[in-house]
């Protein structure tokens, strides 16, 4: 090609470019090749005239998500990465359903199976892999399929409608995903595997066997250590025979026994091929102007079958082919973080010990988790996690950096927050391995497009779109980038995924249309689901009760279990009981009662709570009514989206510093405000002097006695979002405290979003706006009036249950039937 006489530079690298575009041909329309094209277009959109050939009739789709298509959860459209429009918008000539059959490396022309000839200046081979079909008799019968593309999926779905028995040959990741999909489709599934545990590339024997146990509980059947020798049947598959003489029946056989690089075209064209197409560190083959990327490639003797390394390759190749400086591709450390059938597994680097590689293992049989960290030459070189993969990202980072094992132990002791973890991440580090999205790309999208939620980041960048393993990291990046604005930004958000309406819109409709129960709200306002969800049902129940305190009949079935049963559920299904101890003040009589009940009902644990009262653990649900009856104390509402406690210091009754009666005021406040529903829990305290022994400074409402009066502080939080309370006002009498606190309390009830703590609410509303409402005497009076209305209808829930046998029968009793022996 002649260079034109007018040279000009588009980059400051000393090179010159022709005005005429170079012809780039990509053989293969899959994830690796198209990702590389995207990188090229990002670098130099006008350099190439691009033509793409793909054997499948679809535009580029996410092959990793095929298992969700198999389960019938997503459609082809949903897993498409680049739709038809993308190709036309980028002026790419795309030939689908067409296979390149010959490359003339001398003349630089490719020929397709439809007798098309296309010239090229640069050629990229991204022919991917072909599934390995075990060469046994019967492998060509009807009903035998691979699990590689959309057609395979559709075939399997068809078969699941007509037949019952499936066998999957291959217990690697792909085989297990196929098995899971077929189980979902209602088939009976056997996984046949030659090794004696599954996923032996990613897991060691311990983790592999733990996985098998979990999958068996889900209904998967395993035939391990079995070699298939024949697929029998007439024209249709009827079953498999094994080398040990045993056999099973099957109507559908899925070959998930591995993949092989698709190299026939390259080999026939004189390109050097070993197991894969051999490339150097710049993805160049032995023939100039011909490159290769993806699963078909062999680099430093390694062929990759996971997506992240292929995206790394694509980046390097794109720079190279555009004539830019590129870091050499040096290979990738393999890491996989997966949810296989609901089970979390993580694997990175090397996973087996030998004389040079030592391991640190943690096996927790109780929680069914396993962690193994491998160390070579004193540096972290690999890891296997089963059941709890939260440490995965951190370990991968250490493996990549070759962190010293001493550093690892040090970091274990530090409480490294997840946000500081993403803070320290370099911008080029890949956060979403399935889609190859870097920290820099996510942060940039958040900033330039004003993104505020994980869903928005997902829609914009594809991060967390596939397996979702990086969702936490995406959330942390949002927190890191947006800072305080992160949680506040969720204002116009729909209350849950069942609706598009926001909280304000729903409340307006409830008032407007006089809606009076949750099902009515969901029907009238067009809820997407039949019955709502665990987010909106309690929310609607709260809003309806707040709007109609007297008439509304609280829906027990729309309450979270704790609030429904008036006890705190523990992880073993027992409950804890916390009786009221107003202001944290008790008596010998109360303590005796508590002790007696704890002994009689064999409480597993008796503990003093942060709220200045006592908690009894290990109470069975059906014993709750009797425990309450014998305690004869009102419920402490330790479970409620209500006032929890009003902590107090001793105050002027005994303390030499106390200027006010903190206990008296605290008890009065607790007695007045207990039981009524609030958007989220409310914690209060009263201290008798600024020494603040009751910790009023971190409470939703914190009162501090001063000489001659009281200071009221609001919006504090001592928990997940530590926040100091701010001064609302100063008053003279405890009567005024009750009045202002009541009005404030009711204002919070009426204007906050369900699940919004006062600390968040105050920042959103603005303290000045709240102050101006509370400075208005009329508004204060009206707010207190409405609060009193809501309080008047309440009574101790424990007493209600004790006196109502039908509630006990319906909500607390278990039915136990001894098994009959015939």
């Amino acid at each position, binding site marked *: 090609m002649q260079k034109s006489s007018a040279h000009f530079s588009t980059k400051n690298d000393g090179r010159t470019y022709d005005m005429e575009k170079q012809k780039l041909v990509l053989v293969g329309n899959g994830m690796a090749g198209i990702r590389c094209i995207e990188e090229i277009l990002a670098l130099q959109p006008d350099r190439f005239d691009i033509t793409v050939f793909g054997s499948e009739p679809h535009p580029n789709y996410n092959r990793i998500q095929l298992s*969700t298509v198999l389960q019938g*959860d997503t459609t082809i459209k949903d897993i498409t990465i680049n739709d038809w429009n993308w190709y036309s918008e980028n002026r790419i000539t795309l030939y689908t359903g067409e296979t390149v059959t010959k490359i003339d490396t001398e003349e630089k022309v490719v020929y397709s199976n439809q007798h098309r000839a296309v010239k090229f200046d640069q050629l990229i081979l991204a022919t991917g892999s072909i599934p390995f079909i075990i060469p046994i008799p019967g492998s060509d019968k009807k009903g035998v399929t691979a699990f590689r593309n959309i057609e395979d999926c559709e075939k399997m779905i068809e078969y699941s409608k007509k037949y019952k028995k499936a066998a999957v040959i291959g217990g690697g990741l792909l085989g297990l995903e196929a098995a*899971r999909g077929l*189980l*979902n489709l209602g088939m009976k599934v056997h996984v046949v595997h030659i090794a004696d545990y599954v996923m032996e590339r990613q897991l060691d024997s311990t983790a592999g066997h733990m996985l098998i146990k979990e999958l068996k*509980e*889900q*209904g998967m059947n395993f035939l391990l250590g079995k070699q298939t020798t024949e697929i029998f049947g007439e024209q249709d598959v009827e079953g498999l025979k094994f080398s040990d003489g045993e056999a099973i029946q099957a109507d559908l056989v899925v070959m998930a026994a591995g993949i092989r690089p698709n190299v026939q075209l390259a080999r026939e064209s004189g390109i050097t091929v070993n197991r894969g197409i051999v490339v150097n560190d710049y993805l160049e083959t032995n023939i100039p102007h011909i490159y290769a990327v993806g699963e078909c490639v062999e680099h430093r003797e390694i062929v990759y079958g996971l997506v992240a390394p292929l995206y790394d390759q694509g980046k390097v190749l794109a720079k190279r082919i555009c004539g830019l400086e590129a870091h050499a591709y040096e290979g990738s450390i393999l890491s996989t973080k997966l*949810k*296989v*059938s*609901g*089970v979390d597994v993580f694997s990175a680097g090397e996973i087996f010990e030998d004389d040079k590689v030592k391991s640190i293992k943690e096996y927790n049989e109780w*929680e069914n988790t396993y962690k193994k960290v491998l160390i070579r030459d004193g540096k972290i070189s690999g890891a296997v996690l089963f059941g709890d993969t939260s440490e995965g990202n951190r370990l991968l980072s250490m493996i990549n950096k070759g962190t010293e094992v001493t550093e690892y132990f040090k970091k274990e002791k530090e409480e490294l927050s997840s946000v500081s973890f993403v803070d320290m991440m370099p911008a080029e580090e890949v956060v979403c391995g399935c889609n190859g999205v870097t920290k820099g790309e996510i942060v940039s999208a958040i900033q330039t497009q004003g993104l505020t939620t994980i869903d928005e980041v997902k829609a914009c960048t594809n991060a967390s779109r596939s397996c*979702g393993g990086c969702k936490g990291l995406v959330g942390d990046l949002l927190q890191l980038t947006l800072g305080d604005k992160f949680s506040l930004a969720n204002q116009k958000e729909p209350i849950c995924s069942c609706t598009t309406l926001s909280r304000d819109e729903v409340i307006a409709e409830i008032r407007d249309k006089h809606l009076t129960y949750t*099902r009515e709200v969901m029907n009238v306002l067009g809820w997407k*689901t*039949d*019955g*709502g*969800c*665990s987010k909106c*049902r*309690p929310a609607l129940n709260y809003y309806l009760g707040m709007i109609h305190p007297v008439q509304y009949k609280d829906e*027990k*079935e*729309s*309450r*979270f*279990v704790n609030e*429904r*049963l008036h006890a705190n*559920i523990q*992880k073993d*299904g027992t409950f804890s009981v916390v009786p009221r101890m107003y202001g944290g003040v008790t008596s010998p009589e109360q303590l005796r009662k508590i002790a007696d009940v704890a002994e009689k009902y064999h409480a597993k644990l008796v503990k003093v709570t942060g709220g200045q009262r006592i908690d009894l653990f290990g109470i069975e*649900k059906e014993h709750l009514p009797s425990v309450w009856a014998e305690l004869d104390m009102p419920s402490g509402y330790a479970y409620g989206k209500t006032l929890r406690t009003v902590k107090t210091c001793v105050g002027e009754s005994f303390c030499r510093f106390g200027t006010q009666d903190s206990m008296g005021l605290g008890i009065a406040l607790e007695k007045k405000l207990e039981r009524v529903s609030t958007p989220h829990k409310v914690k209060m305290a009263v201290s008798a002097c600024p020494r603040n022994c009751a910790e009023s400074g971190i409470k939703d409402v914190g009162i501090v006695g001063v000489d001659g009066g009281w200071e009221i502080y609001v919006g504090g939080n001592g928990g997940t979002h530590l926040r100091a309370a701010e001064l609302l006002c100063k008053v003279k009498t405890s009567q005024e405290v009750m009045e202002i606190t009541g009005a404030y309390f009711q204002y919070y009830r009426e204007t906050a979003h369900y699940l919004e703590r006062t600390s968040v609410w105050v920042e959103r509303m603005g303290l000045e706006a709240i102050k101006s409402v509370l400075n208005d005497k009329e508004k204060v009076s009206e707010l207190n009036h409405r609060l009193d209305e809501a309080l008047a209808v309440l009574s101790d829930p424990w007493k209600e249950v004790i006196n109502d046998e*039908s509630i006990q*029968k*319906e*909500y607390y*009793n*278990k*039915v*136990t*039937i*001894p*098994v*009959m022996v*015939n």
Partner: protein
Amino acid sequence: MGTTLQRVKVAKVSEMPKNIGKTIKIGVNEIALFHLENGEFRAIENRCPHKGGVLVEGIVSGDYVFCPMHDWKISVVDGLVQKPDNGCVKTFQVEVELEEVYILLPS
């Protein structure tokens, strides 16, 4: 292999408010029995495949229950855990006759 089912009487319809689970222990089986909004009765094993949470206490919506421990959504009809999580629980056949609820157990 014979799969004869044993019919075990477990509750009266009148004692089962809608959308409130009831714990039924039959031998070693611990079962969560639900009376759904549409009037159907469904039964699943009372153990979430995630970390063993008691499903009987979950909020029920349509054909689904939300595990009270970590909010996994599970179909009470086929026992399948809904996306983005994975897994399944055992289901049991239920019959209603003359206002009595029976669970069918393989004997």
